[in-house]
């Protein structure tokens, strides 16, 4: 399956690159080619699901695959809505990095799914979470562009955070409902839960700051970079913290 993965990943990256190049001259076919790249990865995820006999959402590597599908999709949506090109470029580059990490660290593709994960909440919880991560990291890419080029990317960032926070709220609450069914309590301040709360709180803070202080643009852009550091801690950094040994939710490392 790993040989197949490198083929699919390279094909997807080629489609994104080709699509972005084509888009400069012919927008519609360029967008089609770019979307084909997303579809190729989605097909791979479908194959993997069928081969493993469980949703490919359990290991850190599998969440990276899901992210590499959803981030370019989100970038397409943002690009179309705001008539921008850079989200598609940044989205494809970021997704390619994550595919590269997966190529460098192939998962063992363990078929097992521990009983606690066998729940109808598993798929919606992970999908809305990775979708939220895609929107929120897109906002961080936008803030990086704000500092690098001086472009006014903040309107697009604001909307990415707004949509991302909506999905993050759903993911957090789905997780609480699921935890009640699986472990007996909806919230136990497990390190992963604590960082999920902190991630939610910092983006909630961003929304309130933006609605109150529109003009503080540099502060807002800097705040988004700090926020994505918290998000990264929640997604994979928590595995390296002193508190990780007490967590029941850390992703299985390949």
């Amino acid at each position, binding site marked *: 399956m790993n040989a197949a993965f490198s083929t699919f990943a390279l094909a997807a990256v080629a489609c994104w690159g080709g699509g972005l190049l084509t888009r400069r001259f012919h927008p519609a076919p360029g967008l089609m080619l770019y979307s084909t790249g997303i579809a190729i990865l989605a097909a791979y995820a479908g194959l993997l699901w069928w081969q493993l006999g469980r949703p490919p959402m359990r290991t850190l590597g599998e969440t990276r695959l899901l992210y590499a599908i959803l981030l370019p999709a989100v970038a397409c949506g943002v690009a179309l809505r705001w008539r921008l090109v850079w989200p598609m470029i940044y989205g494809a580059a970021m997704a390619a990095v994550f595919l590269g990490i997966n190529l460098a660290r192939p998962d*063992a593709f*363990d*078929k*097992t*799914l*521990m*009983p*606690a994960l*066998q*729940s109808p909440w598993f798929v919606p919880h992970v999908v809305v979470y990775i979708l939220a991560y895609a929107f929120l990291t897109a906002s961080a890419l936008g803030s990086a562009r704000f500092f690098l080029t001086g472009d*006014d990317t903040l*309107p697009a960032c*604001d*909307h990415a955070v*707004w*949509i991302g*926070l*909506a*999905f993050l*709220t*759903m993911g957090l*609450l789905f997780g*609480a*409902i699921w935890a*009640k*069914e*699986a*472990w*007996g*309590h*909806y*919230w136990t*301040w497990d*390190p992963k839960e*604590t*960082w999920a*709360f*902190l991630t939610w*709180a*910092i983006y*909630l*803070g961003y*929304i*309130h*700051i*933006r*609605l*109150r202080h*529109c003009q503080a643009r540099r502060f807002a852009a800097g705040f988004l970079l700090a926020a994505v550091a918290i998000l990264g*801690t929640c997604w994979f950094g*928590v595995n390296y*913290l*002193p*508190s990780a*040994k*007490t967590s029941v939710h850390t992703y299985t490392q390949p």
Partner: protein
Amino acid sequence: MGGNTKGFWSGDLGYRQAAAATVGAILVGWVVQFARGGGGLIPPSWPSNAIFLALFLGWLALLSGSDGRLVAWLGGVPFALVSMLGVGLLGVAGGVIPQTTDQSPEWARALGLDHIFSGAPFAAALLLLLTNLGLATFRRLRQHGPKVWFFSLNHAGLWIVLAAAMFGSGDLIRARMILLEGQAEAMVVDAAGRQGYLPFGLFLQKFSVEQYPAEPGRPGAPKRFTAEVTVLRKSQKFEDVRIEVNKPFRRDGWTLYLTNYELSPNGQPNQCLIEAVRDPWLPAIYTGIFLMLGGAVAMLFRNPFAPCLQP
């Protein structure tokens, strides 16, 4: 102090005053905690927690009717941001330092760093946030228009979740029970070692573990645990039930979760660990969760930044 001729509290109330209030509340919490030897708070239980909550809610409702500057500040955005920062910074400490009271050094225990989330400083910061959130919600409910609904779903939902979780924690019972194959049991033991009894007994007929097939270099992992249990109740028919992970069993206000199992000396699984939970405030939690879910869905259809888009 205030930076101008007026005093710190008599001039404009904003971020600095909110920071002073938050730091003050957290410090008071720390002093209380330190004076009590560093132990966590013992949350009040029914009915005193309900009385406290009702008084708190009534106070917020009354206060929100005032249009004074103090109330506007206490229920405003700067106070919200600063009190969230207070909760957040304590949360960062709790997210980095292992929250395991049995292995932590003495100084960490005395400062409450190994049980941040049950400590008085965190409770103080959360109470400030609840005051702000409650006032903001009540003040908005006194207005009219579609924005009120959107605002209330999110803010009231969060207030209900936080308040019910905080004030209801004194009534939450999470206890463990060990079931041995071929034996009956009704006793449960909580994390502090206190014993209690369920209103019914459980007789473990059979405990089985289904494994994934072992692969080269990888032992078979458990796929499914099943406890086949007979529920024994006074002067009622015995009832055969199945408890599995993610499929808890509910009866008489208790919910029983299968959490783990032990192997017998011959390697066969013959006893299982049950978590018995009683959480009478759960309907309030779910009410808040579903309000917030409604608010999250409504977010997808709104554009709040129009005023911000003009340069």
